[in-house]
């Protein structure tokens, strides 16, 4: 397998990123399009802007490097690195989720979604609304129904 091949990714806002092919194919979407020969050069990545694409590439680079590393001690470091990686504002976090989903990067999708799940855990509905700025759009009747249905969840 050719390892030092480089590919160019083009973000939705026109910025180019040159990366090793081994890093780019962390994304199954990109991998498939390269293999099917439909990729073109540079490979356009619609829907993912340069800010997010840069972060995604950073993630993939780190993970590809870690996989190559000899010693397994890096596992813990990688977990810590991942934890830092997701310390971003919500908007960026959700953009990363969408990008990971579109680009089909399972580990990044798992990481970002677990982060959101952790933000949800344990809070009351009102706290959850506040955390994510969700508007309560129930009618009063629906609200009552919902309260009855889910009362058990709050003991």
């Amino acid at each position, binding site marked *: *397998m050719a390892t030092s091949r480089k590919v160019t990714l083009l973000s939705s806002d026109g910025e180019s990123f040159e990366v090793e092919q081994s890093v780019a194919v962390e994304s*199954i*979407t990109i*991998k*498939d399009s390269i*293999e*099917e020969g439909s990729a073109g050069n540079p490979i356009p990545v619609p*829907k993912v802007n340069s800010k997010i694409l840069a972060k995604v590439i950073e993630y993939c680079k780190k993970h590809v490097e870690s996989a190559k590393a000899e010693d397994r001690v890096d596992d813990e470091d990688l977990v810590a690195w991942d934890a830092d990686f997701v310390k971003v504002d*919500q*908007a960026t*976090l*959700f953009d990363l*989720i*969408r990008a990971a*989903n*579109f680009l*089909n990067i399972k580990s990044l*999708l*798992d990481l970002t*979604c*677990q982060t*959101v*799940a952790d933000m*949800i*855990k*344990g*809070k*009351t*509905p009102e706290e*959850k*609304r506040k955390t*994510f*700025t*969700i*508007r*309560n*759009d*129930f*009618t009063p009747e*629906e609200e009552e129904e*919902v*309260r009855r*249905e*889910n009362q*058990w*969840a*709050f003991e």
Partner: protein
Amino acid sequence: MAASKEEEELKGSGKRLKCSVTGRYRAVVAEEDVRPCEEAEEGVAAGEDGEDDGDDGGDEQLGEEEEEEEDSELPMKPGLFFYPLTPTSFVVSDALEPDFPIIYVNTVFESFTGYRADEVLGRNCRFLQYRDPRAQRRHPLVDPVVVSEIRRCLEQGLEFQGELLNFRKDGTPLVNRLKLAPIHDDDGIVTHVIGIQIFSEAKIDMNCISYPVFKETYNNECEQMSVYTPKDGPLPFVQDQEMCGILQLSDEVLAHNILSRLTPRDVASIGSVCRRIRHLTKNEHLRKMVCQNAWGRDVTGALERMTEKLGWGRLARELTTLEAVCWRKLTVGGAVEPSRCNFSACAAGNRLVLFGGEGVNMQPMDDTFVLNLDAANPEWRRVSVESSPPGRWGHTLSCINGSWLVVFGGCGRQGLLNDVFVLDLDAKQPTWTEVLGGTPPLPRSWHSSCTVEGSKLVVSGGCTDAGVLLSDTYLLDLTTDKPVWKEIPTSWAPPSRLGHSLSVYGRTKLLMFGGLAKSGHLRLRSGEAYTIDLDDEEPQWRLLECSALTGIGGQSAAVPPPRLDHVAVSMPCGRILIFGGSIAGLHSPSQVFLLDPSEEKPSWRILNAPGQPPKYAWGHSTCVVGGTRVLVLGGHTGEEWILNELHELCLASWQDMDAASDE
């Protein structure tokens, strides 16, 4: 028989396989079917006619002719698998090129999948998991666990067998019963992988699958950026929509990747937040995923039956709140004779199994009994085994991998034991087989055991020779070819004891409770709880500091009084139930206590279960059947050891009590 003779011939001959018809089966992968892709078309024409002819002699002739004139393109080891005589689709992939590109597909494959050979050669087979040619990733209904398993087998050069959801080119769903076999060259390097597919209709109506909400957004190629428009009710303010990042995610991502990771309680809680999320959380498929992630696949599989009546949402709720808990009495037929006490019992699926025990005159018994709760009229039956372990009492019986049983220790005719015997309950002729596990733990009785991760037996404490109490912890991994006992070294262990309970929660964590424990030079009933996580690099026992939850309405503190020989049950949601046992003082042994060891501040709660609890206090054995039924059997009433009247603590509601076994 004809098939195996054929198989023997093929194996022994060392030649390449040929296509032949023997009885119902025939060898697949005939030489003429496998040619490099340049010649594929020809190969298809020549080979396929023969195959598709079915069971007339034409095949044989064709096969023989082909064998005479063919070249060996691909050396293969004979002795592959045999298949029933239905048109089988197959695919050959090149294992030496990256990502296993297809180099050959047969016409059966083409007709089943709707893809022509020229459309798929050079690609990896995964496109079958995409719902249509324009899809960008596999469809969410395709089981990712199976896909990982395929990847693992390919990486390790192993055979794979399993079932996977695939799609025709036109989007029709198919069930693909798939076998993948690596082909090695003379140096043992895998050069090709052969895939054999038996496609059948998938009984899914893609228009009415349980999450129509996903289908809508999946087909929408701009799903990521689409603003959610609910079908009913007013549109949310666009401004709010823009501010709220989480609601901008597609249904698929939101439900599949985020909501599914929450506990049932959190799902209900977030379902109270807004309409769209409520709608998503009511989806039965999501609820099942939540249960699977929260409780594990094994437990969820066992609970499947309950959900037919209750649905996953209601079941999750009932198992979380225990609002439907009640005691029930169950009378069964048959008899465990001669009568006995101090036996050991456990559940294997929906069967209860009992082994050994102490008969009259303290005689150790060695017989095995089964009670099948799936039967219309369950009754105890003796299991006829070729040989039994030596008779014993005070031993432990645990279930491994759903249908195997393992016995350890106990007191036999000649003293204390530390042997291990296993039994496959589903074997045609069940036989107890001894497992020699290297250096075994000290012989003992009244120890405690449990099964971790399906097949790891953990044993702790008990009483060894000269009445010495033990405080050790040992593990025997029965998945390995040669299981070896390993002591789990801990810098500190709970005081040595017997008659305590060991329960598993959170997959690899253990909770030890109660028992008769060493306290200075005395032995006292213990009410302490200890935990250990076997997944830790260096597992350590820790005392669990539990408080008593003072209930609403001034209920008194609910810490269970110290006891031994009690019952401890792990529930799907990681909580432990404790009741019964030999308790000092005037406390009622039938009071049920509940503990969630994984809470930040674990506290005991009293569980009020209506109905008639077991009267007897000690000498029980309990088994959990189907994930929600806790059966208490045996126990001394003062007169006799009762085994035909079981007491059941139902954890979730049963609509009808008919023990109707389904088809």
